């Protein structure tokens, strides 16, 4: 007469074996037909300027394959989703995009394991976008803490939109380093912005001239982080960012730690009347090598 224990164990093993076999035969999967059906629905309802947000991020290549023409790099690499009035969220429940946090969906539809939800919000107004106006910026370098004359950084390479295969993108060349507009990788996510490689012993200055109508009634939103994980792995110590508003009327020092993400800062602007206002961003680091400072800024109201 055998004991109960082996029989119970045998039954337990059999249950697990059957469960695992069924799981292998019918595993969770993202069906291509669901992706295509969802994409057709999103495309039919899409209006210019809509944001298509995907969660979790690993799904994005599948959605971009179908809807990439509606998902420009400026959308995919956004700092946040507050400037978009309409958001189409494609998600694998229970995931949600951070862009729709706090919003309630107007409509939701399931396509197999995927969900399409539509959201509306009152968007912020972006009066001035530093990344968009990068070509209008003045870039220079100087030795910090001295009266040495600034060294201008001159544009080299093709202008944005005129690049050719085999030709590297254009940017402001400052000695052995560059400042350029690109899709950055900060915290392993795409971020559209301006990358400035810091040079030892030098401070890089980015100057923007901003019209009064864009300045009045707005606040400066600045996102900062370090671009490129290969370089972050080797970078030592923080980078320093000095934000100078209207030639010293207001100043704010910020730091960028190596492992931080794309950190958001909101700065009040001095409200003076002038035809043109000046925003100067001074970038430096005690240990400059491997610091590729990534920034994006907007004047929002």
């Amino acid at each position, binding site marked *: 007469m055998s004991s109960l*224990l082996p029989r119970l164990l045998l039954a337990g*093993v059999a249950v*697990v074996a059957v469960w695992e076999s069924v799981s292998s035969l019918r595993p969770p999967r993202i069906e291509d037909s669901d992706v295509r059906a969802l994409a057709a629905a999103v495309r039919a309802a899409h209006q210019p300027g809509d944001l298509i947000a995907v969660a979790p991020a*690993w799904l994005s290549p599948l959605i971009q394959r179908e809807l990439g023409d509606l998902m420009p790099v400026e959308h995919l690499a956004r700092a946040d989703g507050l400037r978009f009035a309409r958001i189409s969220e494609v998600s694998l429940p229970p995931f949600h995009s951070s862009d729709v946090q706090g919003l309630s969906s107007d409509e939701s539809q399931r396509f197999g394991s995927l969900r399409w939800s539509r959201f509306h919000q009152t968007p912020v107004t972006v009066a001035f976008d530093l990344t968009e106006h990068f070509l209008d910026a003045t870039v220079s370098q100087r030795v910090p803490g001295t009266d040495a004359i600034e060294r201008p950084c001159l544009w080299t390479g093709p202008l944005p939109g005129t690049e050719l295969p085999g030709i590297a993108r254009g940017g402001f060349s400052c000695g052995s380093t560059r400042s350029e507009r690109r899709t950055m990788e900060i915290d*392993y996510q795409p971020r559209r912005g301006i990358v400035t490689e810091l040079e030892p012993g030098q401070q890089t200055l980015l100057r923007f001239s901003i019209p009064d109508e864009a300045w009045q009634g707005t606040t400066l939103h600045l996102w900062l982080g370090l671009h490129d994980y290969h370089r972050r792995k080797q970078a030592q110590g923080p980078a320093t960012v000095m934000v100078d508003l209207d030639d010293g009327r207001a100043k704010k020092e910020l730091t960028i730690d190596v492992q931080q993400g794309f950190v958001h800062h909101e700065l009040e602007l001095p409200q003076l009347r002038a035809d043109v206002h000046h925003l100067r961003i001074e970038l430096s680091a005690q240990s400059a090598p491997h610091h590729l400072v990534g920034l994006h800024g907007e004047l929002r109201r």
Partner: protein
Amino acid sequence: MSAGVKRARWLDIALALLLFCATTMGLLLASRSQGFARDEGYYFHAAEHHAAYYEELASRLSKGELRALTDRALIDRYFSYNNEHPPLLKTLFGLSWRTLHRCNCPSEPGQHALSYPKRHRTLGLLTNGEAMRLPSHLLAGALCAAVYLIGRRSFGRAGALCAAGLTILAPRHFFHAELSCFDAPVTAMLGVTTWAYLRAQQTDKKSWAVLAGVLFGLSLSTKHNAFFLPPLLLGHALWLRRDLLRGEASDSRQTATRRVLRYLFQPWALSMALLGPLVYLLSWPYLWFQTVKRFTWYVGFHLHHVHYNIEYLGQNYNRPPYPWHYVPVMTLLTMPVVTLLLAVLGALLWTLRREQLIEPLPSGERSGGELPLVLLSALWPMLIIMRPGTPIFGAEKHWLPSVPFVALLAGAAVSYLIRQTSRHARHQAVLGPLLVGLVLTPAALSVWRSHPYGLSHYNALAGGPVGAANLGMNRQFWGYSVRGAMPFLNRALAPNTPVYFHDANWFQLRMSQLDGFLRRDIADAGMEEPGVVGSRAAMVMHEKHFNKYEYWIWDAYGTTKPSFVQTHLGVPLCTVYERPSPARGGQ
């Protein structure tokens, strides 16, 4: 020896051979659809060099030129490349290739590591890649046979068959066993060395001790993991043979010193200490000159190895300290669940109900301390990697030597269940095959489901690859998923298109072209951002730290819309972009 015992022995030898052949053939057939991996590319290149060395050496020796044996220039020419890894497997890959590949070498300039103006005389049985990979398949087959024999001697035939089956029917082990790499082969070498050691303990025969020493040398020549084996075996042997210290009252001639010497210098230990290094040195001609300098460099390379990246629970790790739980969690999420469940049961039952599952000792043999050896061998490789300073970028491949011993513990549980569920021999005869089938089915299905993306496999506990992607687990490494994109590239690209191949290196692409998986006119555009900028098509293999490469492509191509996404169960592995044609200017 009775006729029954003889018959049983022959049956076991036949079953071991069957397991060897089935595993080898299974891997050979499956590997035809398995993409070449990045590191394989380097070893293919080295393998041709090693084979060329032995060919040239044999040629010169056949002409009576004995000095060729000590010709440093000859050795350095063929062994300098990839000398951060010992040579045994690369040599076997090379000799297998040299003997078996279907040769069109003279018409393949630039596609081989060396130039071949004349066709090789070969058996012409396999493609280049198949011939290179065959030694790995044979070693995995040998491991399954050895696992069967360990299990058969310990707890009987049905449990042993399960253990052998579960050894190879683990998706990640199966994947590595398909490749011309070292991780599955060193798992096999350590497994068979441990078997030989165990037989030396069980039988007290010098021949097993000698074999253990030779196999240990070959293990060292396979991969540096082998350096971690002696402490394990020594600890086990000192515990097992502690009776030697006490001595027999009747044996008054033995002094205490002699007893201690016999205790410490057991035959297997002497054999491993003497034959191991000798075989190691003989197999690696590169160490015949400047031995200390070159060996020190080799050790230093691995002590100061670059910490590559691995994603785990949403975080990218590329420097210590690493989380200690990486090893148990990865094991829990990648091994077949039924194997893990049975292994835990097996360890408990073997400890608590030993007499209900072990086989009677064959005459003339003694217990070899099987349970502690199997348990230690299952845990030791994991414990080494759990140290916070040990790199984890290779994921489970670095503790793969645990797998056969985890499978042996599972086999012990199966043996117990068959024997104790019913005491009737007739019932056991029916239950045995049924239970073996029941246990092997989910493991086999998980291998089938994961192929050819074994590195992307996660089990039902993780929710499969989709669940693992949600958890933020690494999806792949070594750029092997490029193979899934090759049919698209062959179909879609214009002649002579330069392609940015991202993590796939030129050597693995070269083998893909040689074996007809990738069109030979497709060119590699080069590495890093200049490669992207100069390409007409570009791909990215999805690993967390590789995201930036996709952003480079968006910027360089002015589009975020890929042409093709290679998926496994809907999870993107490799995404291909094509550069849009420039718009024509107005007239």
